[in-house]
């Protein structure tokens, strides 16, 4: 176990390294993204720009620049080019909002997906199944930002049931926190509810055909016990592992659209702005942040997978 975690950590560092290099390179090939010119202002002359460049170390060779940048990220000293604000601090400030959004949405999506998927599988072929299937397929066909825009338009602007976005910290006012996040939660969850309920349905239908389910019935377990203890429990394995991956991806950048449309001051919005302004330091940091979460949850999923399915022995499969 410890060995496995160590191995994953090494892999994680490798992936993060690769990602940071890629981002760094992408941004160094963008023409005219010269940060010094931007910092120096619209009337700047060449001399001033040269001094700014020197100050930022942008005259150093690329590898040196990369190392400096990474050092600053990990010592929390990185400041953005466009606003001179501390990047790590900005990300830290965004985490509560992003986490509130993602965790809340995750709870909603898992709860609904399990209920819908279970009902769908148990009533496979029935009316309820057809209805849930239709809903699920519509759910996975909705562009998230579009759904967000439409919900905002109808429920916040036309009917004025909900606030027009924004984020209220949980510590400030829990009721407002939830009130402000309700629409974003639903928006973010809809896609996953659709996807996961479909997945659970087919997973359950597969598991229902497994020999051990027959064994369970032959044991005289009630149908309910068979379905929950054997069918659902085993069907959830792929779901839970996928959940880890998706949750990591959502925290690590998937919430960008929702945060943008609902104006939630989270990491996603910050990332969006950093990209919009081609601001390398925050972009490096948020990409690393995102990738970190994705890789982290990948690793958690692997560990969880081994726990959920004892057949999988850690370390043997590395992917």
């Amino acid at each position, binding site marked *: 176990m410890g060995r496995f975690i160590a191995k994953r950590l090494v892999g994680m560092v490798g992936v993060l390294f690769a990602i940071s290099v890629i981002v760094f390179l992408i941004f160094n090939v963008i023409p005219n993204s010269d940060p010094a010119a931007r910092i120096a202002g619209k009337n700047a002359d060449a001399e001033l720009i040269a001094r700014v460049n020197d100050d930022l170390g942008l005259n150093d060779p690329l590898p040196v620049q990369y190392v400096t940048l990474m050092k600053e990220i990990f010592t929390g000293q990185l400041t953005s080019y466009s606003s001179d604000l501390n990047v790590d601090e900005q990300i830290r400030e965004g985490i509560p909002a992003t986490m509130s959004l993602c965790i809340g949405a995750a709870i909603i999506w898992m709860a609904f997906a399990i209920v819908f998927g279970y009902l769908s599988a148990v009533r496979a*072929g029935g009316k309820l199944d057809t209805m849930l299937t239709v809903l699920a397929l519509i759910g996975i066909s909705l562009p998230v930002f579009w759904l967000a825009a439409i919900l905002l338009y109808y429920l916040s602007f036309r009917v004025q049931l909900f606030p027009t976005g924004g984020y209220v910290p949980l510590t400030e006012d829990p009721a407002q926190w939830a009130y402000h996040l309700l629409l974003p939660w639903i928006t973010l969850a809809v896609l996953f509810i659709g996807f996961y309920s479909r997945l659970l349905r087919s997973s359950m239908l597969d598991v229902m055909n*497994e*020999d*051990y389910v*027959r*064994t*369970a*019935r*032959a*044991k*005289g*377990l*009630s*149908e309910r*016990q068979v379905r929950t*203890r*054997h069918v659902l*429990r*085993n069907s959830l*394995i792929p779901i839970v592992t996928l959940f880890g991956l998706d949750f990591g991806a959502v925290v690590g950048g998937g919430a960008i659209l929702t945060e943008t449309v609902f104006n939630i001051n989270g990491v996603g919005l910050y990332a969006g702005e950093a990209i919009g302004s081609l601001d390398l330091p925050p972009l490096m940091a948020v990409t690393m942040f995102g990738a970190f979460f994705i890789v982290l949850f990948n690793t958690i999923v692997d560990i969880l997978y081994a726990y*959920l*399915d*004892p*057949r999988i022995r850690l370390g043997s499969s590395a992917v």
Partner: protein
Amino acid sequence: MSPRATASGPLLSVKDLEVGFATEDGLLKAVDGVSFELARGEVLGIVGESGCGKSVTAQTVMGLTRSSNARISGSVEFNGADLIEASDDDLRKVRGESIAMIFQDPMTSLNPVYKVGKQIAEQILAHRDVSDKEARDRAIELLRDVGIPHPERRIDDYPYEYSGGMRQRAMVAMALSLEPEVLIADEPTTALDVTIQAQILTLIEQLNRDRDLAVVLITHDLGVVAEVADRVQVMYAGQVVERGTLDEIFYDPQHPYTWGLLGSLTRLDRPRPKRLPQIAGQPPSLLSPPGGCRFRPRCPHAFEQCAELPSLEGRLGKRSEHADRCWLQPKEKESRRSVDGRIGLGAPAA
């Protein structure tokens, strides 16, 4: 449904069982009019090639084939109560409690995510009002009974940590946990090596002897049947083609299909023949079985009358139990089967 009804009649009685499945290509009649009876402490072997309906028969007894596309008729009476008509709940009380079942593939028949002990205890807890601790203790005891070494340690293993033979033992332990009256063993050794097969068969024999357990043993291997069964029923294409006592089937087989089965065995107890007798062709599709005698297309002895389906009856007269589905006259049978050289050895060697 009391588990220990003391009726003098058969423990389990199946009458005119028909099981069909609606498929995309039409109705697939897996079992077509199967009847048999099982007495307390008796071992009944059901033999046939894959797809002959033997497993469906067994699973239907347990109600495991119930589904929206299954068409089931006939009756399955256990201790006088009909299981076909029984509610799901009543059926549930019989399963595991009175009739237990073990399956062909011990690799997949245990839930991979639960510990073996837990899966055994689960069955006990589903039927008995006992504490978890008691159920666990019982599980350890059962594992010991079926010959798992160090059961108190192995009880906390996951199925993947068991070898195939141990898993099948664990399945047997589970089946025995509530001391059922009937054990249905559906090809319990097919997936196992010969050495392990011998172990499991010995175990089943022991249980039958020591606990007076009635066993339905389903297999395609006549050799396995010969080891443990008291009576044998040969199935072909969803129908019973011959039934009788073990000795009757082996020493006085009446149906050409049984001859074929016996003949095609590669056996160690006889001199090696120049050439193995074989049954030509393939088993028919159950979607559109041939008219008349279903074995007719493969039968070397078929004649006009075979276009009509023979009924299963004791044509020998004297032994009512020994019955078969063949139009040939007993005399004719005797002469024809001897042609094959190795079957129809006449009276028991003793």
